[in-house]
């Protein structure tokens, strides 16, 4: 898998957010709780999880208790802020309206969990996308190559203008050279850092 590392003007980071909205993959230890994954492995603050991430879906199921919901292998975890609308409120973690969607709520049925490193797909939405996007991009994410190529076709000019460093695998290149890179693997490893560190 090809590894691409970019250092970019701080103001341009949001152009990468659409990739994160569609979902990206991280390798992490599974069999742990949602809270353990986010806070202990991926660097999300506990206060942030409690107060800002108001809506979570584990494999499409709304999660009420982040300490009890267990991450299986190949899980998809979506993170959102508080949402408007009756249904938005209904989906909120541990909310008083949770009964209104009880048939799709996450409920733990397994009694033991194997801990292993596996792929976890993460989606970031709305305010969480803005706020955690830089953290995940800085840590590095796996993106489908097809999506990245689509992104590149639309934003190459931005990258040429705003990238101060481009590292492809083990060598530094110019942003303009990205156009001619051959991307053969189904995914690429992408790391994007701001020229103004967090």
């Amino acid at each position, binding site marked *: 898998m090809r590894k691409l590392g970019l250092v970019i003007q701080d103001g341009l980071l949001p152009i990468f957010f659409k990739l994160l909205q569609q979902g990206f993959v991280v390798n992490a230890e599974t069999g742990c709780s949602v809270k353990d994954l986010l806070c202990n492995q991926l660097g999300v603050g506990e206060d942030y999880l409690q107060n800002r991430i108001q809506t979570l879906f584990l494999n499409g199921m709304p999660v009420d208790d982040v300490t009890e919901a267990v991450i299986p292998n190949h899980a998809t975890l979506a993170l959102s802020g508080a949402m*408007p609308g009756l249904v938005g409120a*209904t989906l909120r973690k541990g909310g008083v309206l949770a009964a*209104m969607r009880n048939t799709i709520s996450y409920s733990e049925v397994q009694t033991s969990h194997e801990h292993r490193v596996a792929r976890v797909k993460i989606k970031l939405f709305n305010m969480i996308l803005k706020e955690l996007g830089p953290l995940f991009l800085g840590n590095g994410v796996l993106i489908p190559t097809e999506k990245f190529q689509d992104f590149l076709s639309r934003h190459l000019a931005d990258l040429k203008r705003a990238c101060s460093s481009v590292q492809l695998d083990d060598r530094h290149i110019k942003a303009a050279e990205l156009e001619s890179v051959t991307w053969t693997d189904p995914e690429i490893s992408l790391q994007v850092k701001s020229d103004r560190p967090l």
Partner: protein
Amino acid sequence: MDKILRINMGADGGPSIKTEPLGDYAGAGGRGLTSAIISKEVPPLCHPLGEDNKLVIAPGLLSGSTAAVSGRLSVGCKSPLTGGIKEANAGGQPSQMLGRLGYAAIVLEGSPKEKTLYKIIINKDNIDILEDNSLCMLGNYDLVDKMKAEYGEKISCISIGQAGEMKLAGASIACTDMELRPTRHAGRGGVGAVMGAKGVKVIVIDDDGMKMRQPQDPEAFKAANKEWVAGLKKHPVSGEGLPAYGTNVLTNVINEAGAYPTKNFMWGRFDNCDKISGETQAAVEEERGGKGAATHGCHRGCIIRCSGTYLNKDGHYLTKQPEYETVWAHGGNCGIDDLDAIAMLDRLDDDFGLDTIEMGATIAVAMEAGLAEFGDAEAAIRLVKEVGEGTPLGRVLGSGAAVTGKVFGVERVPVVKGQAMPAYDPRGVQGIGVTYATATMGADHTAGYAVASNIMGVGGSVDPLKPEGQIELSRNLQIATAAVDATGMCLFVAFPVLDQPETFQALIDMINAFYGLSLTADDVTELGKSILKNEREFNLAAGLTSKDDRLPEYFKKEKLPPHDITFMVKDEELDEVFNW
């Protein structure tokens, strides 16, 4: 705001005007007033388009004051779509202006004896009702431009497009926004058809020379409003999420929950939803319109600012920021993932004066019937244009999803009481299904929207993890929503009120300070109950029974992917919602 303006469109010799004090209706506003007048004065069995129906237009209790986000306008009548009572509401400027002019309601009565189109001009000195057949079959945009040219740029308009003139059951009533564009619509239930049946094309409101309404206790009101504003601003929904992305922020989340009705409610997820999400939409709007293009209030005094401006690819104004329901109805529900096409459909709906939810649902039913392929945006635009042109097919489509389903023999028609369901599949979120089924208005996502039972204290506390809580929650939410609708507050105040008891108290304090009252939370609950009671009794007298409080049968039989669930709430449980 101490008078009611009654206009009898069917009076001998032409429309007649009567201004009268509020009388028995004192203390009512918004939905509280529209439903009180309809339930008391309209014969439940009358034809919705006949002379006995009335169209009531009422600002909220605090409209026209300095209270933040108090600019919702309620429109009530007997609905040509549901056959029951209807209240639809909209933002925009008219509510604030009517409030400042002192009108608690405008009531359009009777039917014109001739086929004549009227415009009504209201200012602080006069009310003029003028024949103007030159307005015939104008779209809302051209109509408002014409009014602007005649009456200046400081007016606001309440109007109908071609659909209302054709008295189609999907017709809306448009209210102009701060830019004097007809973008805010009382959409649901065919209220535009009733305005058309009264022969009124447009009501032009000019509040020049009028001041803000003054509270009885200015100091207490000022303090409560300050607390109110602070509560709205500090909450993450009203203070951050909505201003940044608009209501379409819901697309990704509802889709992830598997409750996003896709291709006429066949699936709960739309693969390309990220192409039409609020996050993507806001990025497009800012790219084309500059930073801040996705942040916009629909009326003066709005501090939530969940609207925006949508420019086309050439940088020209196309429409306001399409709402979540619109993006869903014309987008995922029709398999369309092109934001520009969806924005065009929103523009056409606004111009023709059509409810975007009803039209999106209808086009999806038409697609299932084979009139077009799911995902064919050009075909969807062509079908909506047929409505504006008034072709035979267009008139069928403009009559809504239920009629279209019957005409084309489609079983999967997502309606309750004849009104199309909004953007949440009731199999994914069963509690919303309870509200769809039992709401007095037909399938309505805003009917049970607002304040949680633990704050309102209605019917005791509910264990959120027990399934049976859904009935009680839906009931409590419907009561609370009716009360909020009476205030004229935007429903998005619900979330700060839900989470912050001090913000709910600030709302009550504002009403008390404004009117010199001493209402408590219990009184507000009773207000909500009385509104629902009026509406329920009207519907029963109009012939609607518990058999109408049901979802279509297929929701109980067809499993919705990805969760593969059906709607499981029993009929006898649904019948308990109004058993308080």
